[in-house]
């Protein structure tokens, strides 16, 4: 490559020699032409400002320029001075020594390997020999036994047993109150600050696995609905591992209440507050309340007395509206007989009474 530039540089002085002092064509100064050679007045003469000698020099310099060559030829010239210069025949076939060197370098690279194999090799560097053999990996990493994985599992075995938040809280109580009492204070008078909340004490696990794997634990307590009925409430104790993703609540502070339990907790206060408001209103106007109660009570007494039923049921509202027939309904035969008998008896009694009075008057006169 440098030779190319050198060649150009070499040829340049000749050109420069002709160009460094070019005749000023614009100045109109006449050049020195060889007679009969390159007449300046000839049509199409673009070198009117040059003398014939200059033109000859230019042409001579052009003859000395190297032949045009391709990039490959220039590269081959460059290789000429290098010790690993390939033969010209190789250049003709497109052989490139660098490519061969790259390929040779590639041949020396280690064989391609999977990520698992690379990881195994890394483990080899950090673990004692013999514990791990990356060459023993098969195509299925999932089936591979790895001594380091076994070591991790063994370390996990040495971890403390998973415990519930309640257990952690109880342990915390133990640690902070060991100087005051040796164990859990189960007194129920609430006088000891170290008394754990026996309500939140988790029940014994009933489904713990053989390998100590904790499972969900359920307990039941009796709850009370607002109407006073007993409602069984199921409490589920879950190990910390069973928490949902994103649950960052620290363990050891007790079970989180459910929404229903929160409502229950607030419900007592809300109901009490509502009743107090209602009672306050009633007390403020107790006299009017009593008067209103008395007034409506008298009306109810009237309704109750006006419609006494055989069983004490108040008379239905629609029973008070009776339809009146256009024509009186004739009394039934039994009723008319009774009326007739009563009339006859009455008349007879009146007659007898009149006779008796007459007899008494006569005796009195006599």
């Amino acid at each position: 490559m440098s030779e190319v530039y050198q060649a150009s540089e070499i040829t340049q002085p000749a050109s420069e020699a002709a160009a460094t002092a070019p005749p000023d064509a614009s100045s109109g100064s006449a050049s020195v032409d060889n007679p009969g050679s390159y007449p300046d007045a000839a049509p199409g003469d673009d070198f009117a400002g040059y003398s014939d000698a200059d033109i000859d020099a230019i042409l001579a310099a052009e003859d000395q320029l190297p032949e045009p060559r391709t990039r490959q030829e220039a590269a081959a010239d460059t290789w000429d001075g290098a010790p690993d210069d390939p033969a010209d025949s190789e250049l003709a076939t497109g052989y490139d020594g660098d490519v061969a060197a790259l390929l040779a370098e590639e041949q020396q690279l280690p064989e391609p390997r999977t990520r698992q194999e690379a990881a195994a090799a890394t483990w080899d560097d950090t673990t004692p020999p013999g514990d791990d053999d990356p060459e023993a990996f098969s195509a299925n990493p999932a089936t591979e036994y790895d001594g380091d994985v076994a070591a991790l599992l063994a370390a996990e075995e040495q971890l403390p047993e998973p415990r519930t938040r309640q257990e952690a809280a109880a342990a915390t109580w133990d640690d902070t109150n060991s100087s005051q009492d040796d164990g859990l204070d189960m007194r129920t008078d609430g006088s000891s600050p170290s008394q754990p909340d026996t309500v939140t004490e988790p029940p014994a696990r009933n489904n713990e696995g053989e390998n100590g794997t904790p499972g969900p634990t359920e307990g039941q307590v009796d709850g009370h609905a607002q109407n006073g009925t007993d409602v069984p409430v199921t409490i589920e104790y879950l190990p910390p591992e069973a928490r949902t993703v994103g649950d960052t609540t620290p363990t050891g502070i007790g079970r989180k209440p459910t929404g229903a339990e929160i409502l229950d907790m607030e419900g007592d206060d809300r109901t009490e507050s509502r009743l107090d408001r209602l009672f306050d209103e009633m007390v403020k106007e107790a006299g009017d309340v009593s008067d209103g109660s008395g007034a409506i009570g008298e009306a109810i007494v009237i309704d109750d007395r006006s419609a006494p039923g055989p069983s004490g049921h108040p008379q239905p509202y629609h029973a008070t509206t009776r339809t009146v027939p256009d024509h009186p309904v004739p009394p039934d035969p039994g009723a008319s007989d009774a009326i007739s008998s009563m009339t006859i008896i009455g008349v007879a009694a009146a007659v007898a009474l009149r006779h008796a009075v007459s007899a008494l008057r006569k005796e009195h006169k006599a």
Partner: protein
Amino acid sequence: MTNTDVDSAVAVLRAFLTRDFSTYQSLREGLDASQQQAFAVVLAAAFTSAAARRFGEKPPAADVIEFVAEARASYPTAAGILSAEDAETVIRASTGDDDLIGALDGRRSGAAQTAMLFALTRENEAPAAAIDALLAEAATQAEDYFQRRAGR
């Protein structure tokens, strides 16, 4: 406020609910100011408990309207004094609609609660024992309320 006042209020209400009207009228007219306060609280407590058992928390409006309509039909004289709106208001105020607490004045509220309490106990022919239990619960609530009030 003493427990005796609460007991007197309970006696008045028991006479009324068991339809011993002559006793009811005489006892009610004999209440002094303190006993009237106890009577107002016992009445509200008994009515609230009975309404909560009958309707539950925040019942549908249709349930309340239907009950009030039937009660007013059963007691036409009382219906002439007590409006359906007042009766529905006290029921809804006692079953969770807190905004209606204090919506009625004392006289209308007392009349409505008394009439609806009577209708609630008569609806299923509540026996005397059930009425006694209801009044005992109301008396307890009233005593607790007066104790809290004394501590304020």
